[in-house]
C-alpha cells in the first residue's frame, strides 16, 4: 500500500499538467455544487424565515367550544422543558371585539400577551414605530394602518366592545408595524391581564404559541408530536406550521429536488471526467505497470496505485473546490449588494454541507478510479515485455 501511494504520487508528479487539469475539473465541480447548494439553501431559509419567522410554529389551543385553557402555568412550564429545540413559548388570550373611535367602528382581534414572552416570537419591541408597549391596565398597542385610517394619536382613548356588548375604554400607548397589512389593520396588543379582564376570562388563556430553533424548523412536526405525547391532554389541539403551509412546503421540496438533481449531475460529470482521464493514464502507464509486474508487484498493489491517484486527485480537487466555492459565495454576499447594503442573494453557508460535498467528491474520485484500477490489475506483463 505504501508502495502504491509512492508510485501514485510519482506518476501524478511526473505528469503535472494533466494532474492539475483533473484537480481543476474536480474543483470546479465541487465549487459549483457548493455554490448552488448554498444558494438554494439560502433562498429556502429566507422564504421560511419570511413565512414563519415571526409567527407561531406550534400552537396549542383548546379543543372545546369555549376556547379556554385553564391551569396554563404548569402546562407552559412543561412545554418549556420538553425539547431543547423549543426556543420560545408564549401564552396569549385572543378575543374578537370591536374597536370604536370617533364614530368609526371595525372588528379587532385583541391579543393579550405577556409582552416579554411574545417578543421572543413577534419581535414586538423592534416593531414599535411610535410610543411604547402596554404595561398597565387598559393600555393598547395598535397597528399603523389604524393610525392612518382613523387619524389616531398616542394617548387617544378608544373603546373596545366585546361580543357580549361589554365596553372598555383603553389608552393607545403606541403603534406597531408588522409589515403585514392584515395584522397592521386588525390586531390590538395588550397585556394578558387586561385581555383577561375585558373578556371576563381571568385565569385562562386561549392559546400557547411555540417557536423552535432554526435547526429544527423542518422537524417541527416531530416536536409537535413529542409535545402532544408528553402533555397527553385530549382536550387540547396542537397544530404546527407544516400542516398550515403545505403549498410552501411542496414548493420548497420541488426546489430541493431540482437542486439535488443539479448536484448529482455535476458529480456524475466529474466522475466521468476522472474515470476517463484515469483510464487514459492506465494506458499511458501500461509499460510501467508491466515492468513492475515482471518484477513481482502484486495485482492488488497496482490497483492501489490508481485508487490512490483517484484519492489524491479527489482530495486536492475537493480542497481547491471548497476554497473556490466559499470564495465565490463570499464574493456574492459581500459585493452583490442591494442599495440598502443587504446582499442581493442571501447565501446560506452551511459548513457541514460543504464538508459533505468535499467528502462526496473524494469518494466519487476513488470510485471513478476503480475501473482503471481493475484494468491495471488485469494487465499482463508479457504483452509489454514482448512488444517493447
Amino acid at each position: 500500500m505504501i508502495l502504491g501511494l509512492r508510485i501514485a504520487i510519482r506518476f501524478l508528479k511526473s505528469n503535472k499538467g494533466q494532474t492539475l487539469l483533473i484537480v481543476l475539473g474536480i474543483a470546479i465541480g465541487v465549487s459549483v455544487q457548493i455554490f448552488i447548494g448554498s444558494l438554494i439553501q439560502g433562498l429556502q431559509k429566507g422564504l421560511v424565515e419570511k413565512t414563519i419567522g415571526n409567527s407561531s410554529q406550534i400552537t396549542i389551543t383548546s379543543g372545546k367550544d369555549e376556547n379556554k385553557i385553564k391551569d396554563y402555568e404548569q402546562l407552559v412550564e412543561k412545554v418549556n422543558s420538553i425539547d431543547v429545540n423549543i426556543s420560545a413559548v408564549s401564552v396569549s388570550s385572543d378575543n374578537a371585539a370591536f374597536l370604536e373611535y370617533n364614530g368609526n367602528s371595525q372588528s379587532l382581534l385583541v391579543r393579550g400577551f405577556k409582552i416579554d414572552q411574545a417578543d421572543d416570537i413577534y419581535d414586538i419591541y423592534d416593531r414599535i414605530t411610535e410610543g411604547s408597549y402596554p404595561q398597565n391596565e387598559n393600555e393598547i398597542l395598535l397597528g399603523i394602518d389604524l393610525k392612518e385610517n382613523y387619524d389616531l394619536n398616542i394617548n387617544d382613548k378608544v373603546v373596545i366592545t366585546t361580543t357580549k356588548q361589554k365596553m372598555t375604554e383603553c389608552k393607545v400607548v403606541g403603534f406597531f408595524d408588522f409589515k403585514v397589512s392584515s395584522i397592521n389593520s386588525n390586531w390590538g396588543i395588550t397585556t394578558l391581564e387586561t385581555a383577561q379582564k375585558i373578556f371576563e376570562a381571568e385565569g385562562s388563556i386561549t392559546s400557547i404559541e411555540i417557536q423552535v430553533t432554526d435547526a429544527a424548523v423542518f422537524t417541527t412536526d416531530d416536536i409537535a408530536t413529542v409535545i402532544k405525547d408528553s402533555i397527553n391532554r385530549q382536550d387540547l389541539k396542537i397544530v404546527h406550521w407544516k400542516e398550515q403551509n403545505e403549498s410552501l412546503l411542496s414548493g420548497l421540496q420541488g426546489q430541493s429536488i431540482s437542486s439535488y438533481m443539479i448536484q448529482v449531475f455535476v458529480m456524475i460529470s466529474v466522475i466521468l471526467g476522472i474515470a476517463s482521464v484515469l483510464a487514459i493514464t492506465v494506458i499511458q502507464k501500461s509499460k510501467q505497470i508491466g515492468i513492475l509486474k515482471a518484477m513481482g508487484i502484486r495485482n492488488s498493489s497496482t490497483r492501489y496505485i490508481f485508487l490512490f491517484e483517484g484519492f489524491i486527485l479527489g482530495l486536492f480537487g475537493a480542497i481547491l473546490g471548497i476554497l473556490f466555492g466559499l470564495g465565490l459565495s463570499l464574493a456574492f454576499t459581500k459585493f452583490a449588494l442591494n442599495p440598502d447594503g443587504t446582499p442581493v442573494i442571501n447565501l446560506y453557508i452551511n459548513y457541514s454541507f460543504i464538508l459533505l460535498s468535499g467528502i462526496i467528491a473524494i469518494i466519487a474520485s476513488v470510485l471513478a478510479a476503480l475501473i482503471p484500477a481493475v484494468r491495471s490489475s488485469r494487465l499482463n506483463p508479457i504483452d509489454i515485455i514482448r512488444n517493447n
Partner: protein
Amino acid sequence: MNKILELNNVNKIYGTEIKNQVLYDINLSFEEGSFNSIIGQSGSGKSTLLNIIGTLDKATSGDVLIEGKDIKCMSANQLADYRNRTIGFVFQFHYLLPEFTVLENVLMPYRIQNGKVTRDMIRKAEETLKLVGLDKVKDNLATKISGGQQQRTAIARALINNPKMILADEPTGNLDSDSTETIYDLLRNINEEYKTTFIIITHDKRIAEKADRIVEIKDGRINLDLRK
C-alpha cells in the same frame, strides 16, 4: 547438483486463427549455481523461451517446474512473489521506470518486497551501482542517462534482491566490447560468489564461450547443448 528449473515438452504456439508454433517440445533443465548461455538466430524463439522460464509467459503445452513444483499450481500472487524474490530480470530492452531515478529504479524490487527501504539497503544499492560504474548518475532520472547506462542500471536492479536466478536477454546489446567484457566479468563474479544461476541470451560468441553451458536454439528446437 540440484535442478533449479526444469522444462518438460514445452510447446509455444502464438495466435489462435493462424497458428505460429515458435517452440517445439523443449526439454531442458538448469542446475543451481550454473552459468548458462542461450544462442540462436533472430526469431528462433530465445526470448519466448526465457519469458516462459521467467513465468511471465505461459507455455501452450508442457510443464515448467520450479524446484520440482509445477507453476500451473501457483496463484498469481505466488508467481509474483516468486518472481520478486527468486528471479532477477534483465530484458532485451532496459525497461526502467522513467518517473524514478536510477537509484530508485535499482531499489524497486526491494520496495515491492518490503514496502520500505532501509539505510543499509540504500548503501547496498549504491555499492551495486558503483560496481556497474554508475555511482555518478545515481540521482538522475532513468530517462536522463545513455542507453548503455540504462542497461547497466537494469543489471544493478536485477541484482538487488540477491535472486537465486538471473534471466538476461542480451544484457549487453547496447554496450561497447570493453564494457561488455566488464559486465560479464561482473556477472561471473556474482555467479561464483553467491552461486546465482544465470541464463543469458547473447549474440556474442566470445561471451557464450565463457559460459559453463551453451544451448543453441534453431527454429524453436534445441540444436546444440554443450557443457564444459
